[in-house]
């Protein structure tokens, strides 16, 4: 389960506060929007600080895994996920999807966020296919299935839903507003 992929790994082991955050801030500058940074640190205080720093700087704190003495923090660089109008015509609200899931309908949920986002928090039975990998994985999907595409805010899932429709999938829905507001059941590391 701990095979979380990150776009970059930063070694901050053995460094005391404030260095883990100082280095993280620099490393973030070299990432592209939406990419994931893994920070390996041994300073216990780094967990609360990473979270608070991410919140204040607009990045997304995904979570922390503790492996012995090492804390692995996962952050996703801020991107323009929010406030973009969705274009795909089929929308479904979180609550409706939740009802469908509760009634055990045979449905497919595809989570198009980064693997690290998925790892810490996702809808049970959702399949992880990061947006960038969607094109390569179309063969594993059935064109007639009812497919619900979810991301954090409905933006990446909108792009994914458009892509699927374009490729001949007939029953595709974009889940809005997405995982950032999801109140139903979830699974993930540390849960």
């Amino acid at each position, binding site marked *: 389960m701990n095979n979380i992929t990150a776009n970059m790994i930063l070694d901050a082991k053995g460094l005391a*506060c404030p260095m883990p955050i100082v280095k993280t801030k620099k490393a973030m500058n070299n990432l592209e929007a939406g990419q994931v940074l893994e920070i390996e640190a041994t300073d216990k205080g780094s967990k609360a600080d990473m979270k608070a720093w991410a919140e*204040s700087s607009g990045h997304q704190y995904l979570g922390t895994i503790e492996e012995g003495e090492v804390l692995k923090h996962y952050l996703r660089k801020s991107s323009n996920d929010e406030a973009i109008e969705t274009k795909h015509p089929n929308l479904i609200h979180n609550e409706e999807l939740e009802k469908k899931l509760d009634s055990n309908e045979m449905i497919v949920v595809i989570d198009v966020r980064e693997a690290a986002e998925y790892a810490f928090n996702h809808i049970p039975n959702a399949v992880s296919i990061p947006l960038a990998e969607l094109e390569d994985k179309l063969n594993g999907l059935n064109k007639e299935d009812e497919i619900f595409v979810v991301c954090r805010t409905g933006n990446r899932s909108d792009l994914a839903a458009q892509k699927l429709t374009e490729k001949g999938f007939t029953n595709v829905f974009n889940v809005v507003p997405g995982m950032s507001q999801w109140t139903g059941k979830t699974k993930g590391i540390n849960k």
Partner: protein
Amino acid sequence: MTVNVMTPKEITKKVFNKEELFILDVRNESDFNDWKIEGENFEYLNVPYFELLDGVEEIMEKIPTDKEVLVVCAKEGSSVMVAEMLSEAGLSVSYLQTGMKAWSEHLEPVKVGDLNNGGEIYQFVRIGKGCLSYMVVSNGEAALIDATRMTDIYLDFAESISAKITHVFDTHLHADHISGGRTIASKTGATYWLPPKDATEVTFDYQPLEDSNEVTIGNSIINIYALYSPGHTIGSTSFVVDEKFLLSGDILFIDSIGRPDLAGMAEDWVGDLRETLYKRYRKLSEELIVLPAHFMMIDELNDDGSVSEKLGTLFAKNHGLNIDDENEFRKVVTENLPPQPNAYQEIRETNMGKINPDMEQQREMEIGPNRCAVR
């Protein structure tokens, strides 16, 4: 401009003397809101260090130039960084040596009284965490009550006054801090006393402390008289020292009373707590000087930094001793309780000898305020 270092001892002096100080706390907001350096005339600004990485320009105008400025963080590193930035910007500031870690561990000994046949009683004020421990000294012998894990401080202090520690007591099994009692007893050969009802799960040998036990310190007759006073824990025991001082443990504080819920038994122990506070203590002389194991707020400190008050005064002024209605009392001590102390379960297990965390882990467990009281 220069960057200076300020030690916990220097800050403690400022607290005791009610001096002014401007504290720039650069820890994250939740840590600051949870626990900070308290002083009657201290002013605060909380800006996390990670918001100052690009510069301190934005906070410059919020920092006074006519006051002493102290930069504080968890362990020192970030406060040094910020202090240097402020210094480059032209301010003269200090940082707290070893940060809140050291603040949490600082003990300030204050003499609280003389004993009848010669001898003294000292209170060790753990100013950052609100814990109070005691040393009763007579004729070259000393007894320790509710010692913290900073054991060297007591050992060095005893040596400095040429006293040998012969008895070590814990009034109860602590849930907010790690006891140094066992360590000190084994280093000095002193007897370690613990109330047996709190010690049912401990993994070590101890001398059972029971109602009416009397221990004599020194050649002169300094009595430490045990008074069974359950409520905070089922074994909680108070001491009357030299018929003059009442060491009340976590049962009665200056402006609050003990909480009965830290061993998960609030409903069962609330009756004991009431019995202790409203019956057992009522039978004692109102002239006794109450010396509790904690303070909650900085304004409970007397002018010399000590924490003490006459029992009679507490009967008159402490809200927790003035709730006539039993149901009302039950409500006050079992409902709307403050959050439980950080890691209190692990701390209890450590004090039972069940787990043996290393020094760094012990520090982490004790982070934050003590929260043993209800008001």
